[in-house]
């Protein structure tokens, strides 16, 4: 009753502000108005400034010839191609370092995280020192350090170190033999795919069989044997259809082979070992978060130690590990933009650096670069949220 009477009171200016519901509406209207005013202010300034400089807003420059070279390209590119293509090359380079970096960082991080929990005092301390050192030094310093070390301590091309045949280490890059696939290699690939398909079927069958009879097959060891063994047999049957193209010193540089540039090597290495330290801490806290009672209960049920790890500890620990792992992947991807400091041609260096300077289209270029990073971030977090939901604990 009180509420109705209250509502029938005349709407006064004072009441508009003291009633929670009206106040919420008014505040939001004010916020929107403020936002629009701010945006209008910024936009008019931008229009005026661009006019004063005689610049126009538009994305036509994307199709103009870029006119600069990129030293590492995953797709064919030369300086006569468009800015758009240069951007794509840069984006692929970002992707390359981000993906390889994430893989290496994850492997290293998991190993270090487990070793950090080892009862061995010595290894425990070593890993602790490693983690604290890498985590507390800016990643840019580490990138510059490794780049500086490669460029200033490795010898020049002519005196390149050659630890084994066909491998050359010089300050212009690491040269390794390039595998050349001859005809008949298809057979190996087919064997590999067949082995994987067979193992998927076999593991499903084994699971059903176990549920029905309780018998357990060593699926994992059989799987490893089949996936490695089958392609190997196919390789020999096909008559070893694989050759290596050796890098050779011709003139001032090496010809042939696969080259890993010092910029890529330094960036990849620094980003991975930096991120691995963070992942190691996530893994450690994840494993520690599984209550000790779980292990004790598993042992009490007579489950073997390595099965306890695989079936009881790891699945529970993963729930704690995965969310922060996502943000580490994101961080690595974002940190890969530091490539510009050492001249690795990623999206920021090609598009945000050279294209921006050449065309003077600051606004358009920055909008594109920011949108690309935002899209990558949102995609990674969307994927990880989906994964997270899949493995989340189903509660009542």
């Amino acid at each position, binding site marked *: 009753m009180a509420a109705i009477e209250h509502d029938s009171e005349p709407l006064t200016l004072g009441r508009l502000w003291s009633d929670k519901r009206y106040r919420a509406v008014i505040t939001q209207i004010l916020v929107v108005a403020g936002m629009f005013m701010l945006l209008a202010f910024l936009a008019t300034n931008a229009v005026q400034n661009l006019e004063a400089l005689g610049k126009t807003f538009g994305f036509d420059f994307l199709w103009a010839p870029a006119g600069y070279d990129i030293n590492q390209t995953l797709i064919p590119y030369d300086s006569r191609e468009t800015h758009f293509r240069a951007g794509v090359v840069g984006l692929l380079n970002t992707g390359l370092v981000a993906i390889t970096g994430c893989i290496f960082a994850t492997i290293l991080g998991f190993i270090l995280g487990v070793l950090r929990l080892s009862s061995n005092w010595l290894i425990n301390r070593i890993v602790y020192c490693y983690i604290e050192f890498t985590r507390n030094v800016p990643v840019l310093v580490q990138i510059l350090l490794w780049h*500086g070390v490669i460029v200033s301590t490795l010898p020049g091309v002519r005196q390149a170190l050659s630890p084994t045949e066909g491998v050359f280490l010089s300050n212009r890059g690491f040269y390794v033999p390039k595998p050349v696939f001859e005809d008949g290699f298809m057979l190996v690939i087919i064997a590999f795919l067949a082995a994987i398909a067979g193992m998927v079927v076999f593991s499903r069958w084994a699971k059903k069989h176990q549920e029905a009879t309780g018998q357990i097959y060593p699926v994992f060891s059989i799987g490893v044997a089949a996936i490695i063994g089958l392609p190997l047999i196919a390789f020999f049957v096909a008559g070893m259809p694989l050759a290596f193209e050796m890098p050779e010193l011709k003139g001032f540089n090496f010809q042939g082979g696969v080259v890993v540039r010092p910029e890529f090597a330094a960036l990849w290495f620094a980003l991975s070992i930096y991120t691995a330290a963070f992942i190691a801490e996530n893994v450690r806290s994840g494993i520690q978060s599984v209550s000790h009672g779980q292990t004790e209960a598993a042992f009490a049920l007579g489950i073997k130690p390595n099965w306890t790890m695989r079936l009881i500890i790891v699945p529970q620990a993963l729930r704690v590990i995965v969310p922060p792992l996502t943000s580490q992947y994101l961080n690595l991807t974002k940190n890969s933009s530091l490539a510009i400091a050492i001249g690795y041609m990623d999206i920021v260096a090609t598009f945000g650096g050279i294209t921006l300077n050449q065309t003077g289209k600051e606004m358009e270029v920055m909008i594109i670069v920011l949108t690309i990073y935002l899209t990558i971030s949102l995609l990674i977090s969307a994927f990880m949220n989906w994964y997270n939901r899949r493995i989340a604990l189903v509660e009542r």
Partner: protein
Amino acid sequence: MADTTQTYEPGTHPDLPPPMATRGPILWVRKNLLSSPTNIFLTVVSVYLLYLFVPGALNWALFDAVWDAGSRAECREIGQGACWALAEVRFGQFIYGFYPEHLRWRVDLTAVLFILAILPLLWDKTPFRTQMLMFSAVFPVIGYFLLVGGLGLEPVETTKIGGFTLNVVIGVTGIVASLPLGILLALGRRSHMPIVRTLCVMFIEFIRGVPLITLLFVASTMLNYFLPPGTTFDLILRVLIMVTLFSSAYIAEVVRGGLQAIPKGQIEAADAMGLRYWQSMRLVVLPQALKISIPGIVNTFVGLFKDTTLVVIIGLTDVLGVGRASLSDAKWQGLAWEVYVFIAILFFICCFSMSRYSIYLEKKLHTGHKR
């Protein structure tokens, strides 16, 4: 079997052998280093790794190092180790940048006052805490005038502020300025007003989704476009604005974590007592939420402080800029190890002590729920 049936009169039983040692170096080694085959293997591997790296590193950094020389060539004549002479010759630049030499005392004074200003915030047993906190509140103004000049002090151009000082200035200003903004964003993200909430979420996710370096590029290349024609203001200020916006998004997420940890009953109780929204936030919720988010804020600060090195990419001469400049000096070329290891140690000392502090805080705040 005869032994077991033997009986003794009370007090006549012969002394039992002493129990196995539960302490002592040998037992410690056996328990911690050699308890199982895997363990032995790990010990061997780590001893080998230590043997591989530690003597070489120590020789390089300390025993064979050269502390006094005029150029790289001179260094190499004296010894094969690190050429720390470079860091020694340019130490002033590494710390102060191009700050005029006769005014460097002002930077030192600011640093001392800064320590006095943060002491009461970090340590709740500081003597005269209330008075000290008042000093903390006015410190930013004092620090500004000390560094930039004015009020009778000789003015110094902001471009002259450089070296490690610049990193500290950007880091501290960024975190101090972003704290209120971050708290507002966190409150906005938990607000019941859909438009306010959406705006806050969009801002936070946008900032967290892009790398800081692109935001710095925005600051250096296109921020001027959005200001009234004719306005120019210096790069450091633009960088400070961007860094503040950047860290406010991260602070907002930390504070949101703190807010979520406060039971709903607290807000309901505040409502029941007739407190308005801002009153209940200021008096009831935020004091509790901020207290538990301090470790997270310190961690954000560590991250931001490390990120201040990125300003070198847009052309400011921070400690890394000084380092790169000295590497391109013909006299000192090729000393990448020395320069970057020196800078790394500088950052390590600062960041490691801060992360230890945040661990100490976490331990202090989490009482009682441990086995």
